[in-house]
C-alpha cells in the first residue's frame, strides 16, 4: 500500500483535529488533506437513563433526544457500562439480579482507526442472578460481579453474554459483605470482611480464579470505591488508598497501601480512572476531590470544592478535563494537570446533599463535547458544552431521570 491509503489518511484527519500538529502536517502529510473530508466518519452517542421511581431504563439519542428504547426491569438500577460500551449492566441488588442491555453501539478497532456500528439497543436474555449483586468491575477482559448477599463473585467475558446457554462461573471469596472483586490477569483483588459482616471491611487480598488466597491481606479499612487506569486499580480506604499493580509475567498483582492521613480530614470512597492518562480522581471527604498520580513522589493533590459534591466525571477524550457538580447547582471544570478548577457555571437548581445518598440528585455522563446531566426534579437531561459549560439544550425525559451512562464516539463506517 502507499501513503495515500484511506486508512492512513484517517489517522491524519484525527491528528489534524488536535490543532497542535501543524509540524506533522508540514512534514509530508499535507498531500493527504484531500482525503480527509471523505474520512470524517460517523459520531453517535446514546444515553441510558435509570429512573428513580419507575423500574425502567430509557435509551435516548443524544443528537436529537429521540427515544431509543425503554427497558422494563425489576427495580431502579445502578448502571455500569462495559469497557467497550457495547453492554450496560443494570444492577438491581434488592431484586437479586443484574439485567444486561446491548447498547447497540459497537466499535471495531483497527489500530490506526476504529469502525463504528449503530444498531437498536435491546434487553439481552442473559441475566446474572444471586442474592444481592452489587459492584460490577471489568479488568483484563473479565467482568466480575460481587454478590454482597453471598460473598460470591460471578465471572464472565462480554462475549459470553450473547452465547447460547450463558452460564457464568461463580467462585466464593468468603463471608457475605458489601464487597468488590477486581479481575487482574489470572487473579482477582477482593475485599476482605471483618468477622462481623456489618463492621467495615478490613482490607484487600489477591485470590486466584479458584478462590484460593494468594499472599497476605493488605489493610484497607472500610474499603469502598475503586477504579482502573492503565491496568492499575485503585481502591478507597478510610485511611488512604490501595493501588494494585499487575505483576510481571504470571506473578500476582502487587498491592500497596498509601496513607492519606497527612492530607487532613477526609478520605477517598469514590474513584474514577483516567482513560488516556494514568491517574485517578477521587473524592476526599464530602467537599474536596483528590487527583492521584500513581508512581509519583507526590501522588496526591487535593482540590477543595466550594460546597459538597453531588457527582463527578472524567472526560475520556480530553484527558485533562474532569467535571464536578456541587450541591449549589454549579458545574466545575477541573484541569487535572494543573490541579485547579478553571471554570464554573450554574447548571441546575441546588440539590442538597442532606438526606439519603440515594435520594434523587443529578448524575453526570460525558458524551464527546457534551456533558449530559440528569435533573431529576425538572424531569430533564441538560446537555452542557464541555468547552463553555453553557447549556446547549435540554431533553425532556418521562419519570424521574437519575442514573445516566453515555456510550458512543466517532468511527469510520464501512
Amino acid at each position, binding site marked *: *500500500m502507499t*501513503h495515500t*491509503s484511506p*486508512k*492512513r489518511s484517517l*489517522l491524519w484527519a*484525527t*491528528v489534524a483535529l*488536535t490543532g*497542535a*500538529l*501543524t*509540524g*506533522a502536517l*508540514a*512534514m*509530508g*502529510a499535507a498531500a493527504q488533506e484531500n482525503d480527509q473530508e471523505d474520512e470524517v466518519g460517523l459520531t453517535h452517542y446514546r444515553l441510558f437513563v435509570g429512573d428513580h421511581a419507575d423500574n425502567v431504563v430509557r435509551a435516548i439519542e443524544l443528537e436529537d433526544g429521540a427515544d431509543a428504547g425503554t427497558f422494563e426491569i425489576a427495580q431502579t438500577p445502578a448502571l455500569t457500562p462495559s469497557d467497550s460500551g457495547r453492554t450496560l449492566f443494570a444492577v438491581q441488588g434488592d431484586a437479586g439480579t443484574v439485567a444486561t442491555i446491548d447498547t447497540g453501539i459497537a466499535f*471495531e*478497532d*483497527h*489500530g*490506526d482507526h476504529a469502525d463504528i456500528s449503530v444498531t437498536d439497543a435491546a434487553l439481552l436474555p442473559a441475566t446474572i442472578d444471586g442474592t444481592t449483586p452489587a459492584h460490577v468491575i471489568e479488568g483484563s477482559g473479565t467482568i466480575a460481579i460481587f454478590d454482597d448477599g453471598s460473598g460470591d463473585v460471578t465471572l464472565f467475558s462480554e462475549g459470553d453474554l450473547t452465547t447460547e446457554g450463558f452460564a457464568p462461573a461463580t467462585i466464593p471469596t468468603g463471608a457475605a459483605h458489601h464487597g468488590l472483586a477486581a479481575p487482574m490477569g489470572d487473579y482477582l483483588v477482593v475485599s476482605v470482611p471483618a468477622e462481623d459482616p456489618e463492621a467495615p471491611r478490613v482490607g484487600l487480598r489477591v485470590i486466584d480464579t479458584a478462590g484460593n488466597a494468594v499472599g497476605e491481606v493488605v489493610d484497607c479499612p472500610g474499603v469502598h470505591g475503586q477504579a482502573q*487506569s*492503565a*491496568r492499575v486499580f485503585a481502591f478507597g480506604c478510610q485511611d488512604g488508598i490501595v493501588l494494585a499493580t499487575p505483576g*510481571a*509475567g*504470571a506473578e500476582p498483582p502487587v498491592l500497596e497501601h498509601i496513607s492519606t492521613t497527612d492530607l487532613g480530614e477526609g478520605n477517598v470512597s469514590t474513584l474514577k480512572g483516567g482513560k*488516556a*492518562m*494514568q*491517574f485517578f480522581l477521587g473524592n476526599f471527604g464530602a467537599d474536596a476531590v483528590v*487527583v492521584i*498520580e500513581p*508512581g*509519583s513522589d507526590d501522588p496526591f493533590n487535593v482540590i477543595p470544592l466550594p460546597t459538597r459534591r453531588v457527582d463527578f466525571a472524567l472526560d475520556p*477524550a*480530553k*484527558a*485533562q478535563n474532569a467535571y464536578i457538580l456541587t450541591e449549589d447547582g454549579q458545574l466545575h471544570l477541573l484541569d*487535572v*494537570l494543573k490541579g485547579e478548577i478553571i471554570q464554573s457555571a450554574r447548571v441546575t437548581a441546588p440539590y442538597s446533599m442532606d438526606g439519603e445518598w440515594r435520594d434523587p440528585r443529578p448524575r453526570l455522563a460525558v458524551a464527546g463535547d457534551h456533558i449530559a446531566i440528569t435533573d431529576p426534579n425538572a424531569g430533564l437531561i441538560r446537555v452542557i458544552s464541555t468547552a463553555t459549560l453553557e447549556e446547549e439544550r435540554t431533553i425532556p425525559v418521562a419519570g424521574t431521570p437519575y442514573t445516566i451512562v453515555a456510550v458512543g464516539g466517532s468511527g469510520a463506517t464501512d
Partner: protein
Amino acid sequence: MNRRNFLALTTALVALPHLALAQDRLTVVTSFSVLNDMVSQVGGDRIDVATLVDADEDAHMYQPTPADARSLSDANVVVVNGLGFEGWMDRLIEASGFAGSVIVAVDGIATRDMPEMEGHAGHDHGAFDPHGWQSLANARIYVANIAQGLSAADPAGAEVYAANADAYLAQIDATEAELQDLLAEVPQDRRTVVTSHDAFGYLGDAYGLTFLAPQGLSTESEASAADVATLITQIRAEDIAAVFLENVTDSRLVQQIAAETGATVGGTLYSDALSGPDGPAATYLEMMRHNVATLAAALKP
C-alpha cells in the same frame, strides 16, 4: 519511572564554538528510547531531550501519565515514530496543550504491509508495520527527518544539525557493512526464526531473513491458541532452528514454543526499546549490531 527529568545531553559530536546558550536550547520530547538516541545524536548540545517510554519498556502498551503531559506542555518539539506505534500520543498531545512542532520519524519510508500469518484471523492491529527503525536504510530517513524537523524549529542550528546528521550517517554506513559481514556466513536454508511479536519485518526484508511471531504487530494483541498451534506446526515442518526472546515482551510464550518444538532459544533481541546504559543495546547502533550478531551466532551452522 524516571522519565520526569530532562537530561542535559553531553553528546559532543560536533563541538562548534558558537554553541547555543542554555536558555536557547530546544526542549525535545521523544516517544521512545530508540528515537531518543537518534535525536540526541542529531541534536547534540543544542537540545535538551527526554523520552516518554524508557529503555526496556514496551511503547505499544505504554500509558502516559499527567507528568508526561506536563513535560510535553513545556517542550518545543515532539518526535514520534508514527504509523500508529504510539497509539496514545494524539490524546497526550491534546491533553498537554503542546503547541510546538511534531517530527514524524517514519515519514517517507517504504512501508511494509502487515505480515499475515495463516490462522491470524481476528487480528485487529494496524495495517502497516510501524517498526521502521529495524532497518538501517530506514534509519537514514529517520535521521533526515529529525535533522529537517530540528532545523525547522531552530533555524539557527540548521548547520549544526546537518553536520551532526552527516557524522551519524557515516556511523550508520559503517554499521551496515558490519551487519552484512555478520550475516554472510548464514546459509539460505537457516534464515527463518521466531520472535514474540512482528517487530523485525524491516530487518528481515533488508537481510533476507524471515521472522515469524505468535503475536502480531502490536504486543497489545494476545496470541490466540490457534495462532500458536499453527506456528508450532510450521516450526516443525520447516525445521526452524532458533527462537528469540525480546526485551520488551513476556518471554513465557516463546519459551513454551521452544520447549514444544525443540527449537533452541537463540538469545534476546532488542525490538522496541534500547537496553539500559549498561546493557548490550544502549544505543541504536549497538542495538542493531547486537541483534544481528545474536541472530548470526544462533544461525551459523
